[in-house]
């Protein structure tokens, strides 16, 4: 074998002498990894097939987390959506489910993401704009009205107030007669990446980590099918990171949650199987596929070797993918359909378990029904027309993809070492390390685009002069905010205020003590305490977080 490789290396060198390879600085991945003109077995000479790739459904899961992958189960088609009132969004969910969507994904408005009620001063102008407004259990009941919560799996992008919004969901299911043991879904609940990138935090890191371990413990007991954290690289990438930074910071966040769980006294195998991941799928096709494959291998190795997890479910990196919103252009928005299709294909070839495809109009507004339907159809085309689902990890064994997988893994470990040297991820965040790395990468990319070194079709090349926007946009009814104020006023009139007060006092005591906060939160939710009231109570004990501004 070694002799074979030597011969290949010699032949390749000879071959290259007659080849005009071009300026090597022009041929890089989107994240700046140099790409060679050709890859051969020599580039993966150090790889050991069974050790580094293995078989699907087997350690280290590089080729996929299930033994039959999409032959056994298609990925879940899950369009992230929410706008206006709970009633408006309920209509959109029914529309999507009727057209073949297989899971729900809730987009909340900014007040909800920050644990604020729709009628607080800070919420003005934001209610129902960037997602759906959910201020109480009553809103959650409306959101799922006529949707059987026993059958559907629901992902909720909620972080700071995840414990409370999850309690809304559990209590709404109770109203439908569905016990929590039967619920399937995900709360994002990834607070570390909030400090790094998405910025919808509530409390400082330490109490946030405590609430997260309470959630993990509660789920292990009462909601066993729930994914308690969706460790997210999506927002890190959207904030401008490279693929390697997304991979490294996200996995390091995940490993930090595992450490916290173990430190809180939980057995790693009780909670690790319920951790899932959420990645971005960006424009550089092969880099993205390599990133997904590297992620699975790193996680499996760390869980098995470093944290000594025994169950194979603890080693599995299952993930949801969203195509890259930041790659879409306001110019010639129909082109975004094509960008999204390539990105979705990369996610599928990377072995995703669940997928959101962006709509073409999202650089202008939240998507119209027509735009989101095309996005959903894009997934259905990949699944049902292209044939890519027939065989597992079809790019596995490509010299290039394997070499790139190794390279991204190496770059991730380089970052792990830097973060460890700073004292771990929480400390690194406090130092602003990942934040600065991302801001630097974002600015570097912007400059490359402006210098014409990176092409963005319709923006710095192939521009349509005097282009007019020809697609219709979704408008959020301006009465939504008023309507939501009225609903909250009615709710506060109708509920038992004494009971709410007692529940909030119990919650405050639990926050100050050691009791799992999920129990008193659920009691408060059942009594129709609002999101703002519950989060406000928790803040009285835990404090608030504010980020020092830097650019």
């Amino acid at each position, binding site marked *: 074998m070694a002799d074979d490789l030597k011969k290949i290396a010699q032949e390749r060198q000879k071959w290259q002498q007659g080849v005009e390879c071009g300026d090597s600085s022009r041929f890089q991945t989107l994240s700046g990894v140099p790409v060679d003109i050709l890859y051969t077995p020599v580039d993966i000479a150090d790889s050991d097939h069974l050790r580094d790739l293995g078989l699907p459904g087997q350690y280290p899961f590089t080729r996929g987390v299930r033994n039959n992958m999409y032959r056994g189960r298609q990925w879940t088609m899950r369009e992230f959506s929410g706008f206006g009132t709970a009633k408006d969004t309920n209509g959109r969910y029914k529309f999507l489910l009727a057209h073949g969507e297989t899971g729900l994904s809730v987009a909340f408005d900014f007040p909800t993401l920050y644990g604020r009620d729709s009628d607080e001063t800070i919420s003005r102008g934001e209610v129902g*704009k960037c997602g759906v407004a959910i201020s109480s259990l009553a809103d959650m009941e409306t959101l799922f009205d006529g949707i059987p919560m026993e059958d559907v799996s629901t992902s909720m992008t909620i972080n700071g107030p995840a414990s409370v919004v999850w309690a809304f969901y559990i209590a709404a299911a109770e109203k439908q007669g569905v016990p929590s043991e039967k619920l399937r879904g995900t709360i994002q609940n990834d607070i570390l990446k909030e400090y790094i990138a998405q910025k919808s935090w509530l409390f400082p890191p330490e109490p946030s980590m405590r609430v997260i371990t309470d959630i993990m413990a509660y789920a292990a007991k009462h909601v066993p099918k729930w994914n308690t954290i969706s460790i997210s690289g999506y927002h890190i990438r959207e904030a401008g990171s490279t693929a390697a930074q997304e991979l490294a910071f996200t996995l390091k966040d995940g490993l930090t949650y595992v450490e916290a769980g173990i430190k809180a006294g939980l057995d790693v195998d009780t909670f690790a199987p319920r951790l899932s991941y959420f990645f971005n799928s960006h424009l550089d096709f092969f880099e993205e596929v390599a990133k997904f494959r590297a992620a699975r291998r790193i996680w499996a190795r760390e869980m098995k070797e470093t944290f000594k997890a025994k169950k194979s479910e603890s080693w599995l990196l299952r993930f949801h993918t969203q195509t890259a919103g930041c790659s879409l252009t306001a110019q010639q928005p129909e082109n975004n359909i094509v960008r999204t299709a390539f990105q979705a294909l990369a996610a599928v070839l990377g072995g995703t378990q669940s997928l959101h495809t962006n709509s073409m109009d999202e650089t202008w507004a939240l998507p119209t029904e027509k735009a989101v339907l095309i996005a959903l159809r894009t997934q259905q085309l990949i699944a049902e027309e292209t044939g890519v689902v027939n065989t597992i990890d079809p790019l596995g064994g490509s010299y290039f993809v394997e070499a790139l997988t190794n390279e991204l893994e190496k770059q991730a470990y380089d970052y792990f070492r830097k973060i460890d040297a700073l004292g771990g991820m929480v400390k690194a965040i406090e130092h602003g390390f990942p934040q600065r790395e991302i801001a630097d990468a974002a600015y570097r990319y912007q400059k490359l685009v402006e210098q014409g070194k990176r092409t963005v079709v319709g923006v710095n090349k192939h521009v349509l002069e005097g282009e007019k926007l020809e697609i219709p946009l979704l408008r959020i009814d301006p009465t939504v905010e008023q309507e939501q104020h009225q609903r909250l006023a009615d709710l506060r009139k109708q509920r038992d205020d004494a009971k709410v007060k007692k529940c909030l006092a119990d919650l405050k005591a639990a926050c100050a003590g050691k009791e799992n906060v999920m129990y008193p939160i659920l009691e408060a939710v059942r009594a129709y305490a609002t999101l703002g009231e519950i989060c406000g109570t928790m803040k009285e004990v835990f404090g608030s977080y504010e980020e020092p501004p830097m650019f």
Partner: protein
Amino acid sequence: MGKKLRVLVAKPGLDGHDRGAKVVARALRDAGFEVIYTGLHQTPEMIAEAALQEDVDVVGLSVLSGAHMTLFPETMRLLKEKGAADILVFGGGIIPREDMEELYKQGCGRLFGPGTPTADIVTYLKEKFPDRI
């Protein structure tokens, strides 16, 4: 040539999308302007106050949350109320064209959408303030 142009880059409301604001802040600084960045979660009151205290010529608002029709007019109103109507308010974000037109009618400066080269923003400010460096 006069003194350096002072720009306040601000993130009003609850919106956490700060990639654009930070990239623009850096680009304006690299173009030679004096740039102050407010950080996240500023109310229009806080922004107007900061604009006065920092004695800026321009306020750039970045809004990707859809709340632009509330936050832009409110910031402009407060500046006027504080006797600082001469401070130019401009901005960017996810803003539909007809909303841009409405904000222009209310006296807002240029609004830039996704895909804008930062050089365009620099050029715009230099043209607005030709006597500044």
